[in-house]
């Protein structure tokens, strides 16, 4: 999870982001736009998978039972 966060951050920042910053088009979309959205999507999928793998934390269900 830490790895995913750090990796995501690095890939969004210069200088790594320059690697993809070329005037090329995929499906009519500039590559850099395409790259950022795909990276974003991968981060979301990765987080979803990780969250699923975690056990539920039952120790602190702090619903408002006291009202």
């Amino acid at each position: 999870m830490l790895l995913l966060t750090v990796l995501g951050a690095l890939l969004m920042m210069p200088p790594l982001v320059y690697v993809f910053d070329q005037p090329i088009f995929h499906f009519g979309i500039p590559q850099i736009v395409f790259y950022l959205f795909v990276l974003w999507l991968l981060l979301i999928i990765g987080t979803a998978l990780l969250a699923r793998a975690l056990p539920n934390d039952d120790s602190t269900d702090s619903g408002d039972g006291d009202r």
Partner: protein
Amino acid sequence: MLSADFVIATAVGYVGLLFVLAYLGDRRARSNKKSFLHSPAVYTLSISVYCTSWTFYGAVGNAARSGLEFLTIYLGPTLVFVGWWFLLRRLVRISHNQRITSVADLLSSRFGKSSRLAVLITCIAVIGIAPYIALQLKAVTSSIQAVAGSSEFGQGSLKGIDDVGLAFGVAAGMALFTILFGTRHVDAKEQHHGVVAAIAFEAVVKLAALLAVGIFVVFVGGGFENIFSRAAEAGITVDSENTFDARWLTTMALSVAAIVCLPRQFQVTVVENSNENYLKVASWAFPAYMLLMSLFILPIAVFGLTTMPAGSNPDMFALTLPMAFGQDALALFAFIGGFSSATSMIILESIALSIMVSNHIVMPLVLRFSSAGTGDGQGVTSMVLMARRFSIVLILSLGFFYFFFTRDSNALAPIGLISFTAIAQFFPAVIAALFWREASLKAATAAIAAGFVFWVWCSFLPSFESVSPHVAWLLQHGPWGISWLRPEAMFGLDGMDQLAHAAFWSLSVNILILTVGSLLTSQSALERIQASVFVDVFRRGQVTRGNFVLGSATANDLYFVAERVLGERRAAAVFAAEAYDAGVDPDMLEPSQDFIGRLERELAGSIGAASAHVMLSKVVSGSDVSLEEMMQMADETQQVIEYSQQLEKTSAELRSTAQQLEDANAQLRELDSQKDEFLSQVSHEVRTPMTSIRSFSEILLETGDLPDGQRRHFVSTIHQESLRLTKLLDEILDLSALERGERSWENLPVDPEAALDRALTVCEALLRQRGVVLRRGQRAAPSIVEGDADRLCQVFINVISNAIKYNDSDTPVLAVTSSIRAGKYIVEIADNGPGIARQERKLIFEKFSRGQRAVGDQSGAGLGLAISRQIVTRMNGSLDLVQGSLPGACFRIRLALRR
């Protein structure tokens, strides 16, 4: 063609719908904990209040003006949510444990419950958010203008009202709506389920609207490819040359800070969270929501630039594009979407800020100038609500004034970033609060204050450039012509982007002061305790120490305070629960250290940690612990946690020793009272036969000429009474000797069957006299138990004679059975008498208790069963009353077989 009147009517109708939703949501959440409102989906949607009209309108404008930069505002929060395990989870857990209600509350609680820090943060938040509120007002106003300004007919009743009037109307309406909504009652946890339900609904509306516009644009433009290639022909390209520079990093960092520290985000993410597991869903669902929101922003911007006439406002493309293509329904939907995003932000932000203002500024002042313990039960609650209503009006007024002064500035996004920079000043302190044990109050306060000063100078002030020539001159030349103090080029740092410049200076100074200051200053004891509570939240579970010594606080005083703050019902509930846990009557409740701590947290939910602490300190005289004591406590805790299991063990031993002492003490006291009772009972029992002996002997002495028969009768009565007395005294001696363990005997192997037979033989005469039928049930095989044969026989005789004596049936029956079960020798002696009433079942083994239905000629002193039980216990057995085979009573004697 849309008219302004129609659009405004729609907006008002929409607000009405929201109100109904919020009302229903509140009712539903109250009545039913398991409703869909308590779900990760609603939680995630409420977090989407992050996407305001800045997203809906401003991001398009931003994309049109500077390409991809708009993405950073969503990529930053994405990173925070991807790493939720480290930051958000910790934040939520701490806030649940400590009943934190806002960012100000969090920091003040961490830094020794300092009310000064809370006030500072609240003031900064209120001032810093003003531009953000202004942005929403501006967006709503512009969108209404965009609809109305497109035609003469469209103006409708807006003729002659300029945008200032319109914005004022919007602000006033919002204030009213927020007051109606968010200040209906004070909740201990500051959770507003109804509002959250409405916000979640708005999140769906704004997403659907933006997607609808986006899909429409892509459809009209002939697909992504077409849109981008047509734009390229027109000379419009997505400028990525200069995108990834200092500004990219700055906006990314600011948005990371904003998603955590913005009052409304803290409110929905942390305070309104009712279950930590919801974070798991939100961790991917909220970034996904933002991705969907941003998906069509670039196409809308690019398409707008290529098709709309030059000079049209790119911020409004989402609204003006559908109108330009004559899609009135879609335009209306877009308007409602933008309106949604603005209203949800304004409502939640002002509620969150008003909580901060009332908890950290108004309440402490009230507490300072009034003495705790006066006022009526509802005083504080109504005061809190009033304070909140006023602060909502204040907050929206500030937003409106900011709008009024800077209405000439064009774009939406830069205004929002001014607020982000202000709010980001809290972020270093928040991170330090959660992870760095050494961070100290003085350093945090100084750091935030310094960052704020830099923000005012470099970011807030320059935004008035277009309004005030004075400010413009100042920007040009610096104060008093000192050029290295120019707000946009501090210390000669020229040519930097203005936002990056402001963020760089304010945050650098902030972090520098925080780190260096914390290393140089020392913490107070209370800070140290709170620091370890925060930093070790996952290591030590829910342990939170109360920081009070027990002074002369009575439960009554505390109840008074609780009642003032929480209202009568909740206060009573809290105290009743405590009394129930302690196992005492609520009136007899002794306030313990833990309870005061718990009460403080409970109050903190309503009035903030610092205020609650002040309030209780006032009540609990002897207020705070002496410094040395606190130091010791804090150090001890730390040592226990970090180095030595030893200490923990020692303290556990001490605890158990203390517990044992306490138990022993309690036992002694119990025995003492038993002794007194025993004595009084004995005197009572002795008195009765003595009285009759005395009176009869007096008669005999005084009257010389009694008939012989009568004299004999008197003498025999005296004799009988003396016998009874002797027997009673013997029994008492026997019993007390048994209890003291003086009359001990050697537990030898005996045959219980033989003892039982002997007892039956002894009781035979009595049986015959009363005409009781002895029903001999099955008998155990000869066996051996440890005990004393005579004593065992005594027990049997006792029980059997009881069964005979108390049997008032016409055909009395006595059943004796014995058996061996599970290594125990068991005798059951049952009768068909009246049985023993339920309420007496415990009592009959007590001294001097005879059954209520004792037949008149009962001569027992009520010691038999007590003695028998003592004896059986000595033989490691038990004597109990059980459900027997016959309708009456049944006694069961169990003895362990000799192995």
